[in-house]
């Protein structure tokens, strides 16, 4: 128990010290860009508890979740198809490589040109940019399925559908989740970016608008909020992943023991 306590202390001393130092050193700060932490906390309370939750946080998160879900469905389905079908994979490789090499902000421009401004554009940009990590990882995962397992399934006369749902998808799932974790960061970035670039509400818009109107504590509060959102989203995803892949970790552990 004391060992665990020491481990926790070892992880926490630096952030606690950092925040304490920030609080003390900034307390009589007159710099316009680095206001006292006290004022940032006040601005945070004024904006995010809970005045702007409805007007800025919820729209941001909605777009983020929608885009990420679309990316997951498209990425996994397309990845399955391309992973199982080498001809299609080779045929589409140059197009996919080209599209995924376009920097994500330029993809926002593409969506503005195709769809116009508005929510749909942002969701589409988030979805498009975060599809690629999921797609590529799914393809790799599907290709990495043990051929013996597939042969075995064929011997046992498992149908195509069952072969996919019982063997290919479970075997590829760790890789798919790895891709989703990368996609999560991409989706968050494109969410913030699209709101900064062409937004009327949302976290990104709030931060940029606060800066443009020189409400610096508000701007800091927005940055802190975006940090909290990023951390929380990541934590939720890791918990979800651990739940879904629980069987897999166990299986892997025994496989390694042998």
């Amino acid at each position, binding site marked *: 128990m004391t060992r665990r306590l020491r481990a926790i202390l070892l992880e926490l001393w630096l952030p606690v010290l950092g925040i304490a130092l920030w609080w003390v050193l900034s307390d009589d700060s007159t710099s316009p860009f680095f206001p006292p932490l006290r004022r940032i906390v006040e601005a945070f309370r004024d904006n995010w508890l809970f005045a702007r939750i409805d007007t800025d946080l919820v729209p941001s998160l909605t777009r983020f979740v929608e885009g990420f879900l679309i990316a997951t469905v498209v990425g996994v389905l397309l990845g399955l198809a391309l992973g199982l079908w080498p001809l299609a994979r080779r045929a589409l490789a140059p197009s996919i*490589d080209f599209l995924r090499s*376009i920097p994500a*902000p330029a993809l926002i421009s593409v969506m503005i040109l195709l769809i116009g401004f508005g929510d749909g554009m942002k969701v589409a940009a988030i979805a498009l940019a975060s599809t690629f990590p999921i797609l590529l990882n799914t393809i790799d995962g599907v290709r990495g399925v043990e051929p013996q397992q597939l042969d075995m399934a064929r011997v046992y006369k498992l149908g195509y559908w069952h072969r996919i749902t019982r063997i290919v998808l479970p075997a590829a799932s760790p890789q798919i989740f790895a891709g989703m974790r990368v996609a999560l960061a991409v989706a968050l970035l494109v969410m913030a970016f699209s709101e900064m670039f062409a937004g009327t509400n949302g976290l990104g818009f709030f931060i940029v608008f606060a800066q443009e109107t020189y409400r610096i504590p508000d701007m800091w509060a927005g940055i802190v909020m975006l940090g909290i959102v990023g951390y929380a989203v990541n934590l939720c995803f890791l918990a979800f992943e651990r739940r879904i892949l629980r069987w897999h970790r166990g299986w892997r552990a025994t496989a390694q023991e042998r």
Partner: protein
Amino acid sequence: MTDLSTQATTVESHSRTIRWLRHGAPAAAGRGLSALTPVLATVAIVAGLQLLVATGAIDERVFPRPTSIGSELWDHVQQGSFWESVLRTLEGWALGLGLAIVVAVPLGIAIGSSSSAYRSVRFVVDFVRPIPSIALLPLFILLFGIGMSLKTYIVALGCFFPLFFQTMYGVQSVDPITLETARAYRLGPVMRFVFVSLPGATPMIATGLRISASIALLLAVGTEMVVGVPGIGYDIYRAQYAGERPAAFALIAASGVLGILMAIGFNRLERVTLRWHPSQRRESGE
């Protein structure tokens, strides 16, 4: 277990032989054709798009004909101002990435080498990692003004974290047996670092470099778009707002080509470091 798998591979190779015997060995002509598959498919996709736009299935005012995007790109390539923009983008990319490397790699090595230092920063690192670095763009605008240094610092900030983690994890994942062996042979800390830790961490650092390079391009283009710093991102923004669709799509395609070239370059770099890595491992295994 291993017996089974060798049996399976034998069976597999047998069945391949049988298939060859029945249907003949794969013809050389067939192989040549399959090498052309990606090219043919890509040409077909572009031609299909052209057809869809030409027949009006896709509104030309929304998505221009691929041929007009192509000719627009050709026009741009012949202009000095296009290359000027590309250079400006690459300048921010290179300066930012260079700054990040200089700071992140030594720091990652220092913190990765000590387990208590690593555990002390772990929470901070986990908290900061998912925050998009673009969140700090407004603050950086206030601090550095609008210009080249803004782009450089944003790129450096965005590249810092992936490089730092990869270096830190790379140093941590160095084979402990190799390290113990080096210690047993009385290699000093400096020698251990130069001959064991650093080479062991190189593949991870190379991966970090590849990730950072694409993040750097993304942030350079993004900063140019949002803030209006000269570069290819700014050109995209101007073309988009002026409603010059063929030009906008041509510039976006150019940014994609830039991304592809970068990916190819860094993949090659990584392959060089990885090629050397397993050979190192085989030596220690002998």
